[in-house]
Structures are given as structure tokens and as C-alpha cells.
């Protein structure tokens, strides 16, 4: 089965089983998101992809596309809320773009630019978080984790491992590693794993590669995320 739906008055087709965000992406319509990646089980936690479907608030990454749906995506109200949610992610962790080697390749930063984010708006939490530099090739900077769960899913669904998990509750959430010591060096991760590549922020980094591409020549330095996210990317699962 397939059919059409409208997003902000643009009619787009969808095929059976597609979510709204996937139908939109196929049609080249960008719906902001951070926890979604084509091919991985939808998560619906960042809530940036919130749209109105026939007047009802839904996450576009989890909600099934259906015939005749009227989807509002690019309204002032939704963009404003997405900006605020992005700012919430910034103040929750410790994100300092100028000193982060992911700058320019970072989806969180790129979404911030897309939403015209000019400040953090909310007071910072200044959370005390650690860095796990134990692994010879991979670094985890917990300060930059936004709990999108992508590394958890990528490890399980693409790598056939179970390297990551999310523990804790509420504001005390934390990314944990499946190893006897809790350290990355004692896990069965390898640098080629999808789980390492998929991180939308600078939380999981491959060591000694950060400045291979100079700032200015990086993904989102060249093109806004609204165009990049509609194309197939290397880190997509399908």
C-alpha cells in the first residue's frame, strides 16, 4: 500500500510502513532531528521532529505515514519549540563548539545553526561528567552525550554487539559501556564499528582523526543540515 500525505501544503508520496520522517526525507523535505538515523529502529526521544499530524502532536520519526495526513512541519510554533529543546540539550551537557574537534561535523551544532540558535537561553547545569580515554583508538567525552541512543542501537543492530547502554534516571542519565570495568578499552568495540561513527555530537570520537579535515571544509561548513540529512549518508544503516 502507498499513498500521499501533505507536509506544509506540499503533497508527498509514502510507501507502506514508512514513518512520516522517512516519507519526508525521501521527498527531500527536512524535518529536524537528532536521535533518528535511517535504518535504525526509531527512538523518538529528542522530540525535535515533533510535527502536528491532523492537529495532533506526534514524533515524525515514530509515527506511521497514512493516507491524507495533513502534517505541519515548518510552523513558527514548532521551530520555536525545536530551538528551545535544542537549547535544553546544550545546557544539559557541556558543549563548547570552538574547542570541540567535531565542530563542523556535529549534527547538534548544525541543528542549532538551522534553528538560528544565538545563545543557550537557559541556565547551564554545569554537569560533572567524565571522559573515557581508555581505549587506544576511541574516546568518549560524556560531556557531549545527548542520550540519543544511536550508538546503543548501532552497536546492537549493525555491529551485532551490545557495547553501549543508557542508565540512570531523569537528569542523571548516563551512557554506559558493556565491559567488566565499565571502561571502553575492556569492551569488544572496534574503531570500524557503526556505533563509533554514528554519534551526532562529539561524544564518541576516533582518536587522531579530529583535524584531518580542516575547519571550514567540514560537512556542515559546506552545506546546511537541511540538505545533508535528506541525502544518504555513510553512517545511515541502510
Amino acid at each position, binding site marked *: 500500500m502507498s499513498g500521499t500525505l501533505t507536509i506544509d501544503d506540499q503533497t508527498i508520496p509514502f510507501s507502506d510502513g514508512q514513518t512520516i520522517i522517512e516519507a519526508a526525507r525521501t521527498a527531500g523535505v527536512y524535518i529536524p532531528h537528532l536521535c533518528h538515523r535511517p535504518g535504525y529502529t526509531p527512538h*523518538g526521544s*529528542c522530540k525535535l521532529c515533533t510535527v502536528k499530524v491532523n492537529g495532533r502532536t506526534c514524533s515524525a520519526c515514530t509515527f506511521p505515514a497514512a493516507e491524507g495526513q495533513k502534517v505541519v512541519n515548518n510552523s513558527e510554533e514548532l521551530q520555536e519549540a525545536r530551538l528551545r529543546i535544542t537549547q*535544553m540539550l546544550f545546557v544539559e551537557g557541556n558543549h563548547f563548539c570552538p574547542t570541540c574537534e567535531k565542530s563542523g561535523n556535529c549534527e547538534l551544532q548544525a541543528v542549532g545553526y538551522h534553528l538560528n540558535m544565538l545563545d543557550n537561553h537557559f541556565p547551564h547545569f554545569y554537569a560533572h561528567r567524565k571522559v573515557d580515554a581508555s581505549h587506544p583508538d576511541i574516546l568518549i567525552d560524556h560531556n557531549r552525550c545527548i542520550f540519543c541512543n544511536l550508538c546503543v542501537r548501532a552497536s546492537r543492530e549493525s555491529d551485532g554487539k551490545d557495547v553501549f*547502554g543508557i*542508565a540512570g*534516571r531523569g*537528569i542523571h542519565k548516563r551512557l554506559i559501556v558493556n565491559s567488566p570495568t565499565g571502561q571502553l578499552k575492556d569492551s569488544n568495540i572496534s574503531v570500524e564499528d557503526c556505533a563509533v561513527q554514528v554519534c551526532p555530537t562529539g561524544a564518541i570520537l576516533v582518536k587522531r582523526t579530529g583535524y584531518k579535515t580542516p575547519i571550514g571544509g567540514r560537512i556542515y561548513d559546506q552545506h546546511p543540515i537541511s540538505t545533508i540529512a535528506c541525502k544518504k549518508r555513510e553512517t545511515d544503516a541502510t
Partner: protein
Amino acid sequence: MKTFLETVLAEADYQPVRLLKILRAVQAHYRHIPETAIDILTDKLNIPRTQIIAVVEFYSFLHSTPQGRYDILFSDSITDRMQNKESLLSYAAETLKVKVGEVRKDELVSLNNTSCTGMCDQGPAGLINGYPLPRLDRPKIDTIAALIEQETPLIDWPAELFQVEETLYKPGLLLTQPFSNGDAIKATFNRGLTETLAEVDLSNLRGRGGAGFKTALKWRTCAVQAATPRYVICNADEGEPGTFKDRMLLNLYADQVFEGMTLCAAIIGSTQGLVYLRAEYLFLYEKLQKILQNRRDQGLLGSNILGQAGFDFDIEIRMGAGAYICGEASAQIESLEGKPGIPRTKPPNSVICGYLRKPTVVDNVETFFATTHIAIKGGQWFADVGTPQSTGSKLLSISGDCARPGIYEYPFGTRISEILSDCGAEEVMGVQIGGPSGTFISNRELERTLAFEDLSSAGSFMVFNKTRNIFDIVQNFTEFFAHESCGFCAPCRVGTSLLKNQLNKIIDGHGSAVDMEKLSEICLIVKNFSHCGLGETAANPILTTLASYPELYVEQLKRSGFSPGFNLDATLAIARHLTQRDDSGAHLSQQVEN
């Protein structure tokens, strides 16, 4: 440890879905979940250790570091605070020589706060090693402290320390019905399953857990699913602060609740029922197990129930481990599967894809209790009471500023003023209906009615008189949601904590007009963009009091337009600690009044 774990695992049939049961047993034995236990369980249950750690960190009653041999928790509901809980807690800390939130050096005792324990009618209340200590006062703290210092086992403590009273001030439609075991099952089979479901339909019964979904529709939807097996889950996790009516039902009317589950099983075609009992009601566990055994002995559970060939059904009780969010049906299902209680994404609904991804009916204790009597008396009998949209009666747990806190049963449509007069409330400032996630109404709105179409409530009814400070209430509720947010989605995880801090800034007198705007803005993001009902309602305490008492908020604001985003003096705390100074020169004032 291996031998102990083997016993625990055997009792849980080596099933990963019973992870909470296993971890509760480990916690009870070792006072925490040791690393070595996690290693063994990972191996024996064949689940990732990250899942075990995630569960340990998610539930308030599981710990990764040892708690005291006597682990005391004080219920931190607003009604406990109104009954001097704060000063009693300080007294307990002083008497037991332990700081709140810490374990004493000799590991004999630990002391902390916990979310509402469901004893608001007999507060201030506490828990010791999971068992309730209602009606605490200083003499009782003295007694408890002495027993602890003598290291007297809990089993030898005076029973009255643990005595939970069930006070029914106003039994109504359901609580006054005569009942003998098997009545509802016999009535169901005599009438026919389809016909009984039609009676439930006719009754127009709506779920008593708060959402008000039509029960017959839920059961019918489940019954027509092709997938099997199907499950019946009784949600006995009433975590909403101020509610305790399910405690009373399970304590005094458990047979009628189990019978409701049994007839639901007959109608939807289920063989397996689960009761998700909140951790705070551990004291009911043994009693309920005995009742279940008694029902098996009477042929009311097990195979060929009451001689009906092929009707097999049994009920297992699973304990929670301290997480308000597990009252949400899909989070509860996750918890029952041995995972952190994170609400699932819908669609699909639990009725279609529930426990172990099979069709599942999750209903509240009170809902099953009501269906038992509907099965006996018929749907019309029930529908004749209440309002057209809210039929039947509602059990209320009344607490707070009133002469007679306890259980009341009212027909829907009853005015709030009548309820207040019955429970002996005077000089009322306002009432919190449906708990923190519900609605605060001021004394100008007391002619409103109890009904889904006006003021709906899962059962919590907290009364506040004119001596109370509205901000104490809002602050307590807002802290509660920040503490209980599961943290899955960004708006609720970050937003509830932002709300807590922003509200505190205003209450502490550091807020400006801009801060009020920010407070309202965060409220709307959390309310409109969160993943589940917790986030959707977490801002209600602020939003509803702001609507009733805007002038009180404005009075809290500073006159100046500018207000720093952080507290200068508090920021110096680390420097003071490092230099071991606390004189006036080590403090800075940022109060610039004009």
C-alpha cells in the same frame, strides 16, 4: 554468593523478565547490588550487563552501594511535610547520628527521603527495609532508634509500629456490596462471556487509573486480536502522591480485585495474569500470596476454574522497585519485562502489543474491583449512578487539612464542597484533585464536580487550608516530577529540572519579570512536547496555581528588571570549602535593590 544467587535465580525460573524480583532479593540480602552479582547474573540470564546496571540505576529502591542494615526512608509527600516531616527527619538524623542521604559509618543505618509512600492518611510516614512506619512521631523515633542500636531484628519489633489503618469513612455503591468468592465468575459464566462484556459496555465503566479509557472497548479490542497468549495486568502501582485507595482495596477487598481479573481473563481469553504491586506496598505481598493460594484451593484460579472446562488462569504478583513512571501502562510492561520503566512509543497500544509484545489488558485495581460487581449486578445498575459521561462511583483517598482523612466513595458528579464538608475540612484555601499531575482548584471553585468531564481524579484528593503557603505545595510537586522523570525524552528530562530550578529562583526572591516569562515558556515546552503523560502533566502544579493565584507569583518577583542567571554567593561555596573559610568576608551579596 553463587549459591545464594542460584537459589534466587531458581525461584525466578531463570527468567530475565523477573530481573526486578531477582535484584530485589539481592538488594535485600547484600543491601546493594554488588559488581560480582552483576557478573553472575549477566552470565546466568544471558543479558547484557548494561541492562542490569540500567535497571539498578533506574529504580529508587535498588542501589549500587551498600545501604544501612536498617534502611529508613521518609515519605516526602506534601502532606507528610504538612505533618512536620521535615523536623522529624532532622530529629531522626540527630538521634541515629546519620545525615540524610547517607549511610552511617558502621553501616548499621541509612536515612533518606522517598516519594509518597501511599500513607498520606496516616503520615508522616516512613519505610524501614521496605516496610511501612505510619504515624511517626518523636517517641516512635526514639523507640526505633533504640531497637536499631540494639540490632533487634525487624521481626521482633512491636507490631504497632507497622500497623496500617484502613479508615473507610464513606463506603458507597461498590464498597457496600455483599460478595462471596466466585460470585462474579459464576455470574459471568451463567450469563455468557459475550453477554457479560455487553454488561460492562452498558455500565460505561471508564478506567479508574486516570486516563478514563472505556473498559469494555479495551477488553473487546484485546479479545479480537489474533495473537496469543494474551495477558491481564492489574496496575497496583498507585504512585500519585496523595493516593492510597488501591492500598485499601488490596488490603481489604483483594478477592474482589482478583475476581475482576479472572473474569477479564475469561472474556479476553487469557491464561496468565500479573499484578504489578508498587514497592511501597511490600507489606501486602505475603497477605496477597495467601489469598491467591486460597483462591487456587477454592478452584477460583488454576485449571478448569469453577468446573469450566478449558478455563485456565493464574495470577503472579510482581513487585516494583520505586519508580512513579511505572504507573504508566507501557512503562509498567517494560518493568515487568525486567527493564527500566520507560514508556513505549505509541502506536501500537498495549492492548495490541503489550507484555512480551502480546495483546494485553492493563487496568487499575479499582477498575477490576468495579467489574466484579458489574458482572454480578449488571451494567444498568452501575450506569444509573453518576453522570452520563462518568458513570458509577469513585474512590477517593482524602488527606491533608481535614478532620477525617481516609477513604471515601462518591457517585460521580458530586460537588467538591460536599466532599470537603464530609471530611471535615475548614478554612479551605484550595484542593489538589488527582494529585500533582491533576488540578489545583482554589476555594473559589468548590462548586465544581468530581467527573471526567470536570475534575477527573485517579483518587488523590489533598486538602489545604488557609495557613498553607502555595509555594511549598508547588515546589514539592515540581521537585517530585524532576525526581521521577524517566529521562527518556529531552523536553521532560531537561525541562522538569529546569522548571524546578526556575521555580526555586522565583520563590527564593531572585526572579524578575523575565523569569516569569521563562517559567511559563518551559511549562509549555514540557507540557506539549514530552513523550508521555508524566511530562504532559509535570507543569500542571505551576500552570494551575499560576492561573488561580497570579498575584502571589508577582509578589515574589524582584522590583528590578535584571537578575543574574546564577547565585554569586553559592558559586563561591567551593572556594570557601577549599580555604576552610566561612566568615563574612568569604561571602558576597548580589542583592542590588532599588
